[in-house]
């Protein structure tokens, strides 16, 4: 199995509490102080282990996004769907007057 690196201090880019708060904010996930405290070592443990990719020589290698050769298809520019407003809204936590309702965003 790939070697583990529990010694997170070896990781070149270890995360601290401020970083965890920042990424939690970017991810729009509310976190408590307790959450952050627990996540710092967990994420460092995982990220420290991931660091081993640094030892692979990838010079001249193109990043792989599509694993099985395929081509982007085009279709006729015609309406294939629609008039299903009620279906679209059927699972909304709050739908009003045929729209999704959210807290006020413009003062």
């Amino acid at each position, binding site marked *: *199995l*790939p070697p*583990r690196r529990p010694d997170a201090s070896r990781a070149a*880019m270890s*995360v601290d509490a401020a*970083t*965890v708060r920042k*990424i*939690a*904010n*970017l*991810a*729009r*996930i*509310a*976190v408590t102080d307790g959450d952050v405290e627990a*996540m710092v070592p*967990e*994420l460092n*443990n*995982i*990220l420290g*282990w*991931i660091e*081993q*990719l*640094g030892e*692979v020589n*990838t010079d001249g*290698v*193109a*990043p*792989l*996004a*599509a*694993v*099985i050769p*395929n081509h*982007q*298809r085009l*279709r006729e520019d015609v309406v294939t769907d629609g008039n*299903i407003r009620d*279906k*679209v809204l*059927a*699972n*909304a*936590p*709050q739908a009003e007057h045929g729209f*999704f309702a*959210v*807290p*006020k*965003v413009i003062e």
Partner: protein
Amino acid sequence: MGNITDLGIAGLRDGFRAGDFTAREVAEAFSTAVAGAKALNAFIIETPDHALAAADAADKARAAGELKPLSGVPLGIKDLFCTAGYQTTAASGMLGGFTPTYESTVTTKLFAAGAGMLGKLNLDQFAMGSSNETSAYGNVISPWRRSDGGNAPLAPGGSSGGSSSAIAARIVPAATGTDTGGSIRQPAAFTGIAGIKPTYGRCSRFGIVAFASSLDQAGAMAQDVRDSAILLEAMSGFDPKDSTSLDVSVPQWEANLSGDLKGKKVGIPKEYRVDNMPAEIDALWKQGIEWLRDAGAEIIDVSLPHTRYALPTYYIIAPAEASSNLARYDGVRYGLRDLPEGANLQDMYAATRAAGFGPEVKRRILIGTYVLSAGFYDAYYTKAQKVRALIARDFEEAFKQVDVLLTPTAPSAAFALGEKSADPLEMYLNDVFTVPASLAGVPAMSVPAGLDGQGLPLGLQIIGRPLDEQGVLNAGLAIEQRALFNAKPQNWWVK
């Protein structure tokens, strides 16, 4: 004839056609078995009405001489497939009560082929997990127990653990699964059943709750290789609604099954011989090599040099894609909304996602957000995509020499619930043998091959060339014909 519920897909289909029983009798027998196996917690919802309606339609079709490929066969459906009118949760509190208004392409195909649905099967939350311990609807319990008499509840594997548990317990004849890094094959190995992940793009992803889109692939889980072939055939096919769907015809995998491997070459990748692998698994692997040699295959040692980097690559790419895919859960259009008193829109997003996602899902979203964030994108994400290219190239090179590869499916037999859940990394390492084929997008299956010293099932994995599911199934059949695996768990769960 024994119990109807001992039969798999082929047995039910053929017995139904021969008039041995009605489809209604089949649906009732399985629905009763499902209702009586609550101790396994394999289902999130049971849908006997769906199974019975499909059965009645099948009985009518038989009378009219209009049989379909799966007429008379009820199935379990992993609760990651959207089913119109039936709650679909991905085992997350985020989607509690979500009732799709549309049908996934895979279930559309299965129902059009005459199959009915016995219920929606439990899984790891958003398919993130290897033990089914991350579900918001409770752990699935494996029907298997160690022979030590301790009765420790064991993991059915994950993420398709409801599927594997239900098939092993014979409460469904077969089920759908999805596999992002091993979520069909590892649970199959843990529970003594067969499971195949086809080539990426074979089965449409439309209507499957997304985890990591460049890896997610639906597949078949069943008692044996033939049933896997039948089910996969019914699930596969081009779908214009999935931009990565492959526009290729679906072969007749069942009709072309053959365990005769004369002229075939089987590669044994040396990098899968890892440290700390239990001796029993190594011995089973050697046994598998002998079985395939006996079936006529030539055995060749091969190398997949980047194997050891597959797991860390996966744990960059999959969380990165997950963090992007799961951004859709915003409390606005569907699913949970948590709107604290006086909260603005941003607060609502953050509160909703904090309340709706489980700890493992949050962990992966945060890792994904981190590796995609400004300043780290190239060091992590682009680097991982490059290593992924090297891993795929390893397989390409190997498949110039051999037709299929043989490896163990997992580095251990089923572990006990709670045994690995405290350490995320320890859990991730259980997917060491399944992740490489996922990253390369190639077809792979697990077949049950033996029991360990504690009486628990062990699986062998066959990996094939892109689009050569037939080669994978045939090698699987050759093992099945020699392993003669017929062990079953004691049915302690029956009420």
